[in-house]
């Protein structure tokens, strides 16, 4: 998996977990704008991302995310990309 693959894969995970095929976002989208990403779905997202990207998040790494790019950077760092 390359760094370029992260965003499309994340989008696929997001659409599957949040059950909305019409979700669209890019790296600059703030998480607040993804309405379905609420606290109940957050943990589903975390578990699914860990499975798909084969990484393990620490809570502290996810607490200050503002835009999608922050999450992509975090995943890239954990995967050593």
């Amino acid at each position, binding site marked *: 998996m390359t760094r370029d693959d992260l965003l499309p894969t994340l989008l696929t995970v997001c659409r599957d977990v949040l059950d909305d095929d019409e979700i669209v976002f890019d790296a600059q989208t703030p998480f607040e704008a993804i309405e379905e990403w609420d*606290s109940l779905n957050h*943990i*589903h997202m*975390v578990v699914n991302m860990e499975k798909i990207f084969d990484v393990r998040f620490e*809570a*502290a790494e996810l*607490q200050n995310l503002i835009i999608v790019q922050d999450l992509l950077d975090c995943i890239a760092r954990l995967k050593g990309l």
Partner: protein
Amino acid sequence: MPFLSLHFLLFAALLCLAYWRCSKASAQNFLLLGGSLYVLAVWSLQALVVVVVSTLAEWLIARAIDCRKVRNGEWSERLRRQGSLATTHGRSIIPARIATPFGKVLRLTLGRHRTFTPEQRALLFLSLGLNLGQFFLFRHLHFLVPELKHALGLAPASAAWLNFAIPVGISFWTLQKMTLTLDVWLGRTSAERSFPKTLTFVAFFPNLVSGPIERGRHFLPQLASLRRWDSRRFSEGIWLIAIGIFQKIVIADNVADCADALLQPGASSLSVLLGLWAYALQIYADFAGYSDMARGVARLFGIDLFQNFDAPYLASNLSDFWKRWHASLTSWLNDYIFNPLSMAWRDWGTTSILLATFATFLASGLWHGTGWTYMVWASVHAIGLSILVLTKDRRKTWKKRWGKTRWYDPAMTILTFHWVCLGYLFFRAPSLQEAFGHMASLVHGDWFRLPSFDPHVMILCALPIFALQYQIKKSRSPFWIFEKSVTFRTVFYILLGVAILRLYSPAEKFIYFQF
């Protein structure tokens, strides 16, 4: 000093005049602090002392943790050599012996990139102990002592010593104050260097009594520079105050009579149902009205506060409801309880979410007050959210099958609203016995027997509340009025003014003042 009093009106007007004549941020901050302490002193001198002393303690602890964090760079190597601290690179710095769930939560929350000393941990526990101790002392002791005596079969001796006054708004500003240390600990912000600014944050008079519950990292940066006059922001403040007064005086105070008449012991099914609808309108208009006024008053001084309500009765499910109802409390509980717990337990799958949900609502119930009714109310919501989690896959199928139909979304909204009303049955009742009595009436009561009440009042209150919520949801902003034409705005302002003046009465207490 309630918002709806001549005393407050004069105070706010004079403070505002002086505030906007200041040419330095420090002078503006001085006025905000002075005004806030004055309001606190008017409420009670005891509250003033408790707020100042406990904020000083919190500020010192947050500073101490922060200083030690800075010094960790120098300390870590020495401590590592002493074997008392495992440093970064993915290893835990919490000893394995406290691998309790709470310890695990702390360990996961600390992250892998920071180091913490035993002194820092002790300071965090000191902060938590002081805040929770203060909260339980003032909010729960008078309930727990008689309950314990009853449970242990002890004689109900005089409990006069428990009848001390509860400092105003303690539930709100305690949570607000806790974020000072927690956010430093979590690395979200550094400790505020100025004690006066910290005290202004905790004691800020618009949101002191009933929120919104602010965060230091949102509020404190607003005090950093001179606030410049902005007529648009000032108008928005006036609008929020006006709509808040309208909701409180015109809606909440009028529909309260309907709720009281309908929710009497022994009421019929229809009476309980209508009573719950009336109470839903009352509590929303009362609390959202106060929050709007608080945000409006803060805006007059160029300060932005958290938006607490966002059309909650139009929520599509219970999770959506909690994003829209008392959002400042929900996000606090999410950030400091639900998310850390669900992250810590995530390897347990769905169970982790269910446990974290119940723990969060248990905390919410305790926050709201003493008495078993609050715990049952919290359980109703925890059960509702658990059903959402457990039926996630099934709801996907429903949505695929019926989601495109015209009735699916309204049906979900109505279902959510009535689940919330079920919770109100316990939230409002003075005892579990009365709440269960109403519940029994709902199921097998005499359907059509109604007490004397005016149904027109309920209809006239429901229409503007739902119209306002619809407008807020549609335009995604509480300032939708500014998008309308001048004619519409003028007519709307006149109607609002007439309604307020016609129905004004010396204000009763706000429901959320008791918290």
